């Protein structure tokens, strides 16, 4: 004889995906004409971070880059996956300190170019411990 089997299924809620509720109530009359035009919200994170696994942040101290708009307290967005070509602005590690400068690589070595009319370019020689740590892609600035 075939026995009857009663099975209970319990919903697995381990993977709940929250979806923004787009529809407005229809009971109050005419539905909102904006419903058809629901778009994603703007994400600054998405805009500023192109490669999240290679992106790190730093905070800035000092005035050597002041003429190009880098101010003390700014947050630097650093992408380590980019190459230091075309005189990009890079975070470098020089003789025990992190510093940010425009990096110019020539046949006879590297130059760190400040953006401050009172400061001179710095030549990196073999005597220095020098690492190009990552490329600065954005700066985040507090205005008020």
């Amino acid at each position: 004889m075939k026995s009857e089997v009663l099975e209970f299924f319990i919903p697995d809620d381990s993977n709940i995906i929250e979806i923004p509720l787009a529809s407005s109530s229809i009971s109050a009359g005419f539905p909102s004409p904006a419903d058809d035009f629901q778009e994603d919200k703007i994400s600054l994170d998405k805009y500023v971070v192109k490669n999240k696994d290679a992106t790190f942040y730093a905070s800035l101290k000092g005035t050597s880059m002041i003429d190009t708009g880098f101010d003390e307290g700014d947050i630097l967005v650093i992408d380590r996956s980019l190459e230091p070509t075309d005189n990009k602005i890079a975070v470098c590690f020089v003789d025990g300190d992190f510093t940010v400068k425009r990096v110019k690589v020539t046949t006879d070595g590297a130059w760190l170019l400040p953006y401050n009319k009172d400061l001179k370019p710095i030549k990196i020689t073999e005597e220095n411990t020098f690492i190009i740590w990552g490329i600065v892609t954005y700066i985040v600035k507090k205005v008020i």
Partner: protein
Amino acid sequence: MFALVDGNNFYASCERVFNPALNNKPLVVLSNNDGCVIARSNEAKLLGIPMGAPAFEYQKLFDQNNVVVKSSNYALYGDMSNRMVNILRQFTPDLEVYSIDESFLQFKGFELFDLNKIGLEMRGRILKWIGIPVSIGLAETKALAKIANKIAKKFPEHTNSVYSIDTEEKRIKALNWTEISDVWGIGRRISKKLQAIGVHNAYQFTQLPDEFVRTQFSVVGLRLKNELEGKSVLQLEEIQPKKNIATTRSFDKMISDLSELKERVSTYSSMCAEKLRRQNSHCNHLMVFIHTNPFREDLPQYSRNIIVKLPYPSNSSITLSQYATKGLEAIFKEGFAYKKAGVIVGGITPSKDYQINLFTNENPNHKELMATIDRLNKKIGSKKLKLASQDPVRTWKMRREKLSPNYTTDINDVIKVKA
């Protein structure tokens, strides 16, 4: 083909990424509570500092050799580990996270590709993007990939830290090179047993008859033999809920008082319950242990544990705390200075497979209550809402005197750059 990718001296390497001044210097990372050495840079290994070295015993050697000592920073290591796994997933969808610093990758349908080249590319990308050096072993089976990884790590200048066992000749050479005690899955007891019958390296192990291996070392041993012979039997394991969840701590001072111990055990069991709820599972039993400080030979020593079977599966802080406290009362002895206690929960089953007991069941209100506690703690900051058996003021103070900043997870801790 399988690949085993693992970060070289992972914790030490993570520290160095954000503090390159530590490059080429001896560096050790200590366990929770700054107890013992759990990671060493190559320079520290050369000084003869062993894995697990108690920090206080080696303090003099650290001082004499200018060894940089760091407390473990799991927020940082966890974040770097996630980044590493994400980068590896760009190369193949088939990946098993084996530990915080090790992943197995499987390459299906890559027969026409030069996997050694892909290995070098993976290594290069991880080093450039997140600054972590890795070693990569490639082979037909997971056990062989593990051995290939060891070769890559041992001979970085010959292999560029990527080694592939892709011919029969290389396989035999690698197995002959591998001591039996170093083979993945062979513990100290089994390796002693094997050495007693003249098996000293992995190759000799593969020369034993199948039937003998099965009877002596069970089907697990036979599987390992097959793997070492190049027949793949171990697959990538999918992520599954943890089999055991533990919360154990050394105290910042000795505790002799039962009520104070009860408070600790209650807190640890609540933490286990929280972890269970986070992964939607219940436990069926728990173990409580207490012990004195084994390094204080001048004091009387005592250590015991007890397993408590729960009447029904639970992930309620109240239930776990109740039964753990009962367990503690059963093993507690007056007159000892306790240094460490812990709660380990086991028999973990997914909540959706919950077995209803005919006679005793958990108060159904617990489920609602726990969900509310979790929600509130998430909102107002963790651990604000506690059981009455927990100390309302005491927050766990881990000894982390040499803790580096949370460079990647706290905006106030990011690296400071001079302009």
